[in-house]
């Protein structure tokens, strides 16, 4: 081989030098971007210094080579001899620096590794924590949803029972082990007559009228843990007694200790009254039928006796003994016929003509007849007749008889005590098409034991000769015939003051007439 041409080496040298500068600066750029992104990262810091030193080394070396090539091409070899030591010196210096930077990496990387290990463990711990937090959050979310669902259900249930408690028309109460009523609904307070807004503290002893009922209540509660349909009497705030149907359940705590009871009480007073009235009306109906039968049977013989006695009276002069006896027979027979007529009226077997009449006029007529007699016995009459009283359809004559009976009874009740006051009033019942006429006295009242018998035929508390015991029976029959009812109040409770007064009040409640006037013949 004659020789090796150097030009490939020269070209490689120049091209390589340029490429080295380009790549070193591209590397430096990315190293710079890395340090900018994460300034605290030691590795990026190291790479940046490494690349920076390498870039300077690349410039130093590559530029040296390029300058050399340029000078040699131009034939300035001597100049290169001056520059060469500087270029070589710089190259050596920068190569040493590059090595020093690389060795320095050794120290830094240890610290970095320690930090990295800690960071990695922290990162792992953080990940675990995050995962746990996510799980916890999901559980919490689920728990919240569950709690919300339960709360909603509980709220709905609570609302349902609260509504039942508030809106129940029966009394619902809860009492504790010391018999105190800890909670009672508005209907209960209303039933007992206590204010709803601020009721006083109550115990079972306050509301039970009979101690025996209360003892029975506790006996059953303790024995059976519940009470079903116990009929008791409750005392209202004003002392009025009401009939109650009571059901209760004992309440126990977690350890089985009795802590109270919850109960529902139904007011049976109205039902009882209705049942009593029903029984009474049935009794009266049967008595009426019997009376009607008896009256019809007696009426014919009485007619015969009266007829024959009047025929015989024609045969005997009145002054004779026979004439006198026949007169007595005639009089007594007429009395009997009157009783029979009354019995027929009671049993509604007598015809009556009904038309639109004013109850006020009937009352006025009756008072006009009776007022003088009443005054004689120091009985003061108070009239309170409603001016706008609705008319009724009825037989004025029969109704007069009804009110005369009531006034007569009042008169008898008060004359024994040497006088009194008679209140006569009429009024419309606003909530129904009815009118009420009230005859109230201040007499001795009706004893409880005879109250249920006052409308029975021939029942009387008067002395013999003062009454036949048919007055109230006849009145009952007439009022019933008019589609009305009679309410008896004895003693009387004043509606305004609530005061209880001695005496009796008869309330005759009759249906008001329709708008069109009419006449009915029965």
């Amino acid at each position, binding site marked *: 081989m*004659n*020789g090796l041409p150097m030009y490939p080496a020269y070209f490689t040298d120049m091209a390589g030098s340029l490429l080295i500068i380009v790549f070193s600066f591209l*590397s430096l750029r990315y190293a710079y971007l890395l340090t900018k992104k994460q300034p605290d990262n030691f590795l990026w810091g190291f790479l940046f210094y490494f690349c920076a030193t390498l870039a300077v080394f690349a410039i130093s070396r590559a530029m040296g080579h390029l300058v050399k090539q340029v000078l040699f091409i131009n034939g300035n070899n001597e100049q290169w001899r001056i520059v060469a030591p500087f270029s070589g010196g710089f190259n050596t210096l920068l190569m040493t620096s590059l090595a020093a930077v690389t060795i320095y990496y050794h120290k830094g990387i240890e610290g970095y590794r320690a930090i990295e290990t800690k960071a990695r463990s922290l990162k792992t711990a953080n990940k675990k924590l995050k995962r746990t937090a996510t799980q916890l959050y999901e559980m919490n979310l689920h728990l919240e949803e569950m709690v919300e669902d339960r709360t909603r259900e509980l709220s709905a249930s609570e609302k349902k029972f609260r509504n039942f408690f508030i809106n129940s028309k029966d009394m619902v109460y809860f009492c504790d082990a010391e018999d105190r009523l800890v909670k009672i609904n508005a209907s209960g307070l209303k039933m007992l007559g206590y204010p709803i807004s601020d009721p006083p503290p109550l115990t079972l002893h306050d509301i039970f009228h009979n101690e025996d009922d209360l003892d029975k209540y506790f006996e059953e509660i303790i024995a059976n843990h519940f009470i079903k349909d116990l009929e008791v009497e409750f005392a209202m705030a004003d002392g009025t007694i009401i009939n109650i149907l009571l059901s209760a359940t004992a309440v126990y705590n977690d350890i089985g200790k009795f802590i109270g009871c919850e109960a529902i009480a139904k007011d049976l007073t109205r039902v009882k009254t209705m049942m009593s009235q029903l029984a009474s009306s049935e009794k009266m109906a049967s008595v009426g039928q019997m009376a009607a039968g008896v009256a019809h049977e007696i009426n014919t013989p009485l007619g015969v006796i009266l007829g024959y006695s009047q025929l015989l009276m024609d045969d005997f002069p009145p002054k004779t003994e026979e004439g006198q006896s026949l007169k007595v027979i005639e009089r007594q027979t007429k009395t009997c016929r009157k009783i029979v007529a009354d019995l027929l009226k009671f049993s509604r077997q007598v015809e009556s003509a009904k038309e639109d009449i004013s109850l006020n006029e009937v009352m006025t007529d009756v008072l006009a007849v009776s007022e003088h007699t009443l005054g004689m016995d120091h009985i003061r009459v108070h009239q309170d007749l409603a001016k706008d009283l609705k008319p009724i359809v009825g037989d004025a004559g029969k109704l007069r008889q009804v009110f005369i009976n009531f006034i007569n009874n009042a008169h008898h009740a008060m004359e024994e005590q040497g006088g009194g006051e008679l209140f006569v009033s009429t009024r419309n019942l606003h909530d129904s098409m009815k009118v009420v006429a009230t005859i109230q006295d201040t007499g001795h009242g009706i004893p409880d034991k005879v109250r249920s018998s006052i409308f029975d035929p021939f029942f009387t508390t008067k002395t013999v000769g003062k009454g036949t015991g048919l007055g109230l029976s006849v009145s009952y029959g007439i009022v019933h015939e008019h589609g009305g009812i009679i309410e008896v109040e004895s003693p009387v409770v004043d509606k305004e003051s609530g005061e209880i007064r001695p005496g009796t009040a008869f309330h005759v409640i009759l249906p008001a007439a329709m708008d069109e006037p009419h006449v009915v013949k029965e």
Partner: protein
Amino acid sequence: MTPFMKINKILCLLLSVLIVYPGQAWAFQSHAAPEGIYVHQLAHIFFMAALCYLFWDIRRSSFPDRGWRFLQMFCVFMVLWNIVTFTGHLVGGFIDKGTFVTESGYFSTKIAGPINMTKMIYYFAKLDHIFSVPALFCLYLCLRSLYKASCKEEKA
């Protein structure tokens, strides 16, 4: 007398002798011509050692990113470049000026024959950019890859 005082006394005595009998002065050392190339060669060795260490440490650290593998490749190429250049400098010492023949201009320069091993090695060493350019390219790829991985991690 304490040992410290004894040493002080000896040092003072030696200093006095040197001042009184100066002889050849031991001042700065003068550096002869080959020292520069020795320093440069030592720098190559130092740089090579540093690159070997970096290669080993990256391998030991087991960094997961692909960029670190490019850095390892950079180290390998640069070590090869160091070997080549070191050899080139070494062989250069055995090449005479008369070895290069220029006929018409710089680009016509040749290594005159006969071509022996020394001349072949020198010629090959002159092509050291065959190693340094790929090394720098690997470094560029390394940093670009690390930057992209960093961006990706940040997004994640």
